[in-house]
């Protein structure tokens, strides 16, 4: 692993929320190079952990242009090929605006308004439900 890869890995932590659920928070500006590296990391992690759901949290991404959106779609398509569903959460109003204005089709990505909803959705996908226990 090169020094650059290590830096990317440090800036892009992939958390295991539950067995089969990975959370990938993306923070900061994404350019094509970083998106490519994020994709590599995410796919390797999916294979290693045998994940069934990947949550991409893009709350920390200030702007999304066509190239970046395409990269996000690419990550989800590749994950789908590996049998892993993708959920995108934390799309900021500005990002939603620019995505629609740019005519970006998110395809089969499941969008969720918040991380909380995304996690609930992910649990549902792997056959769990979150409920209050009565005391």
């Amino acid at each position, binding site marked *: 692993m090169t020094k650059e890869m290590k830096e990317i890995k440090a800036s892009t932590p992939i958390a295991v929320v539950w067995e089969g659920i990975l959370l990938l928070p993306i923070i900061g500006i994404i350019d094509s190079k970083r998106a490519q590296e994020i*994709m*590599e990391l995410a*796919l*390797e992690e*999916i*294979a290693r952990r*045998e*994940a*069934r759901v990947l949550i991409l949290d893009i709350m920390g991404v200030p702007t999304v242009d066509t190239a970046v959106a395409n990269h996000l779609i*690419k990550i989800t*398509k*590749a*994950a*789908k*090929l*590996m*049998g*892993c569903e993708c959920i995108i959460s934390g799309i900021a109003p500005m990002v939603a605006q620019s995505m629609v204005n740019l005519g970006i089709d998110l395809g089969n990505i499941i969008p969720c308004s918040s991380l909380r909803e995304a996690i609930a959705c992910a649990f549902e996908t792997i056959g769990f439900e979150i409920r209050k226990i009565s005391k």
Partner: protein
Amino acid sequence: MEEQAAAERVSMYVTRGCLVVPIQVELSDELALRVQQDVLHRVCRGGVSGVVIDVSGVMVIDSVLARIIFDTAKMATLLGTRAVVSGLGPGVAASLTDLDFDPEDVPTAISLEEGLRMLEGAVSEEEEEGCQ
């Protein structure tokens, strides 16, 4: 050369009603087409309610090969089974996405085990329906 190609075959086996096709060799287009034929003939013979095509042993899959593999799954679905493609690695998935490959609703699984688990639900559902 042709004889050698003819001798080359991918073995497959049936476990609990699922046909498992573990591909552990680098595929040529011809071999992939032969696997396709073998799978469909085996499904036709009956006793199979699910098919898992496991490609975890294949390091290189181009768009033509991928099309053959995913088409095989679709064809098996037409023959009344559930079909899953399993074991696509990160590299293969990334390159197929770069090639704009479309899996067209064929379900995929991360591993053979996961693929069998996905089919297990379908098989037991069918059995339940049969009981009612």
